């Protein structure tokens, strides 16, 4: 009797563990590059890396028609390549930056050198915000519509073709 009870208890405990880890597997699906497309942007809070009192919560509601989120870092070379395209986009769409695993001083000098395309750029020191929105690698760019849906996602540096596509989307 005692043994049966023990086995039952054991099976129960293992079942619980199974369920928990099963859900954790489902949750981590968002790391696949395309799974976040056409889903709503999770709520994230960004803290400005210049002034820690400045915060911005995304998604923003019904302000502009579209806005763009870009994950960047001063140590990432492709980010440097795509920067001029972000500068071109600056006046057409509001750009929110997520500064991924970077040092404040390096990030500031990066923007001083190449110009600041960001309406707001928050810091993501430990990379948790990037995980939250399902980033795959940096640089990465998202376009979010007024309902908070991610309508476009691009992994890797922006180039001319992507620039034209973004222009078509936000028209």
């Amino acid at each position: 009797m005692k043994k049966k009870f023990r086995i039952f208890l054991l099976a129960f405990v293992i079942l619980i563990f199974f369920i928990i880890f099963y859900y954790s597997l489902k949750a981590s699906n968002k790391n696949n590059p395309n799974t976040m497309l056409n889903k709503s942007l999770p709520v994230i809070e960004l803290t400005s890396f210049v002034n820690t009192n400045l915060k911005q919560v995304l998604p923003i509601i019904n302000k502009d028609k579209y806005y763009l989120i870009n994950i960047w870092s001063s140590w990432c070379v492709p980010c440097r390549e795509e920067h001029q395209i972000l500068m071109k986009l600056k006046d057409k769409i509001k750009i929110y930056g997520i500064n991924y695993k970077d040092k404040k001083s390096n990030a500031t000098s990066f923007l001083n050198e190449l110009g600041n395309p960001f309406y707001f750029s928050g810091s993501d020191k430990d990379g948790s915000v990037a995980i939250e929105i399902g980033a795959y690698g940096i640089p990465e760019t998202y376009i979010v519509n007024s309902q908070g849906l991610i309508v476009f996602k691009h992994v890797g540096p922006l180039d001319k073709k992507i620039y034209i596509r973004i222009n078509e989307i936000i028209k």
Partner: protein
Amino acid sequence: MISNLGAVLLIVSFLTTCSTLFLFIKNNIIQKSSIYLQFFLFYKVSFYLILFSFLFLIVCFAISDFSIISVYENSHTDKHLFYKISAAWGNHEGSMLLFILVISLYGILFLLNSKNINDSLKACTIFFQSIIQLIFLSFLIFTSNPFSKIFPIPIQGLGLNPILQDPLLAIHPPFLYLGYVGFSLVFSLLLAALILKQYNSGWASIAKKWIMLPWSFLSFGIGLGSFWAYYELGWGGYWFWDPVENASLMPWIASTALIHSIVVMEKLKKLFAWTAILTILTFILSLFGTFLVRSGVLNSVHAFANDPERGVYILFIISIITLGSLIIYILKFPKELASNNSFVLFSRDFSILLNNYFLIFILTVVIVGTTYPILLSVFTGETISVGPQYYNTILAPFIFIFLILMAIGPLMKWNGNSLISMKQKMFLFFLVSLFLTILISLYLNRYNFIFLLGVLCSVYLIVSVFNEIIMSKKFFFTKQNFSRLFSHLGFGLLILAITLNHFFSKEINAKIHLGESFFKQGIEINFLKSESSKEKNFEELFGIYKITKDNKTFILEPSIRRYKQPQQFTSETSIQSDGLSDIYIAMDYAGDPSTGIGIRFYYNYFVRLIWISFAFITIGGIVSFVGRKNEKKI
């Protein structure tokens, strides 16, 4: 052609393993006769089939047969032959095949080294080993067949992740597998002994070497992994408490506890239940580690190959194996063994019991730190990462006490209070190590409390080991002592090195222009020139730096590589030794070198002692495996 052959071999080995199981059941349960020869032969055949299937996979990688998906996804014709071959196990499918090969290999090694074991126990062990082998073979064939085809056949492959293109990393996973997959054998041996009612102190004397062997491999594998992270990833450190690192550390801690408890079981016929539980735990944690690394639950820098779908299967396998083994334990564990567990205070067995409590505590801390972020994200959706701060703060004080325990435990007698007889020695060690600690701190001019405590405790252990070496009357002490002394010495040196490294290392991050130089923290860095070169599959940009520290100059040449397939940057570090310490530079991935390049400079104090101590620990384990002659017959 070869790829088809490999796939066929894999299926045949699956069938052979099935028939091995069938033969055992037919012989033992249905006919009650024991003809083992045929059974063992079948098992050996299944081993060779898996071996050849793996060799065929390697050939497919070597000749770049892109008709196979995994070759296409992980290889490229431009790659060096060595990396083409190592790419065979650098991906999920190939590494799972290697995983199965290691399971099977341990079964064969067991058959070759089991003259002291009766046939029924031998057969039953192989039976359980075949079950594990079958479970993973079906996982491999049905969810991740390494020989899956792609059509139309691509002309070029996608390439292997460049940070995995490193000679050390090519041999690091096989060693880790030889380590934690190796625990499957002692796991099977335990289940067999429980079923056949042969779980006794004789079993412990047999099982011990099957723990020592994988333990040594695992220690070595962890050391290699740590060394790889140190010089390839360019973060300047040797251990990051990254979940993937923890995945290999967990079975290591559990098996270390097991090594100690099994000695008590062998010598004093105590701790039977505890040893059985630890054996099961060690193997389950090994599987759990595989799950963490392979499934994609982790958000880690080197969760390289992951796929949530497969994760479900691995999770299912772990659940089944855990449930099955613990049911056997509950039903078959002999009641009479559970009673004798009295311990005399200050006896050697008592110190081993304490040691086990400490190890289990450390294990719990690591498990919680590794799984808490996963659980939190399931329940609240929050994502966090647990850093070194957590582990260092919680573990440091316990490690210090643990060191003292490691020093005085071996001085005690089995089964008897020996506090009075060793009081003098303990005090003497204390004086000697205090003296040495004062010397060290005067020399280094640092008086931080934690630093002093860390040095004191590790020196205490080292002193006690040296005392035992000097005091041993025989010219060459028994091999078992030798192995313990080696491993304990290694551990003492390891903690000493970590303490010194923690308090005296320097880190400088700076942006520096060509021809410029600067002076910081007593170190002068001069950026002399930059050069670039083109290789077969990458372009490389070198920076040449002159470092001046304490009137010594070092020339370092770190570089950045831009790989073509897949497009990725890697930072190649440049390291030079200054005695046991390292001068270490890595460059950041920057655009135009004329605008200045970010560099990370590290002065890693006594870091080489860490690798040396890993070697000591491993050698201890190997000596113990090689030198065991006093096995009982069961």
